[in-house]
């Protein structure tokens, strides 16, 4: 299946794209998705441990099983607001 993954902040800057399309076997987990991203874009590997996945605008765990049609995003540690 093809999964479009939205990227933000440092991850967007590192990959240079707001969205990447990854090819994954049916039933692939979030972990598999992160691995595939690092295979295609090796420079993101160091960041993998801090990335949380969001599916349909909800945070999910690493073992969450993805399906075609899911709205998927990879979320670096958040830092909204001011330095306060």
């Amino acid at each position, binding site marked *: 299946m093809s999964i479009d993954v*939205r990227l*933000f902040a440092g991850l967007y*800057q590192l990959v240079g794209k707001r969205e990447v399309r990854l090819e994954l076997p049916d039933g692939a987990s979030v972990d598999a998705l992160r691995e595939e991203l690092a295979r295609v874009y090796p420079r993101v590997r160091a960041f993998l441990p801090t990335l949380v996945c969001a599916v349909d605008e909800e*945070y999910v765990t690493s073992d969450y099983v993805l399906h075609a049609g899911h709205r998927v995003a990879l979320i*670096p540690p*958040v*830092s*909204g*607001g*001011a330095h306060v």
Partner: protein
Amino acid sequence: MFEITEAPLDPARLVAAVRRDESGAVALFYGVVRNENLGRSVQYLEYDAYPEMAIKKMREVADEVRAKFEITDIGVMHRTGRLEIGETSLLVAVSSAHRAAAFDACHHAVDRIKQIVPIWKKEVWDNGEAWIEGHVPGTG
């Protein structure tokens, strides 16, 4: 009222949106870009957001705050893009019949926003830049 926008934030509009005739107090929090962080002199900040999800998570924070404190309403605005020193990145307004609930709810909302809302800031100094890594949002 929950907004993510590149435009300068308008506190008067947010306060008007949350005030009710039974509100005796409004607590309004401004997160402001300051000129220094951890000893480094900041030139400006750049904010990125996942807007659809950020709005959803702001509403979730609001629901949490409504359940925990006796308030009449709450609203949140966050700005994205480049912000200069002194500009406002975050506004949280809470109206309430009584002041203690307004203060406590507003403070709690700011804390939670920084923990779970998918927004990020990049600090730009004269000799470099970095995306600030804050909280790893939980999946619970």
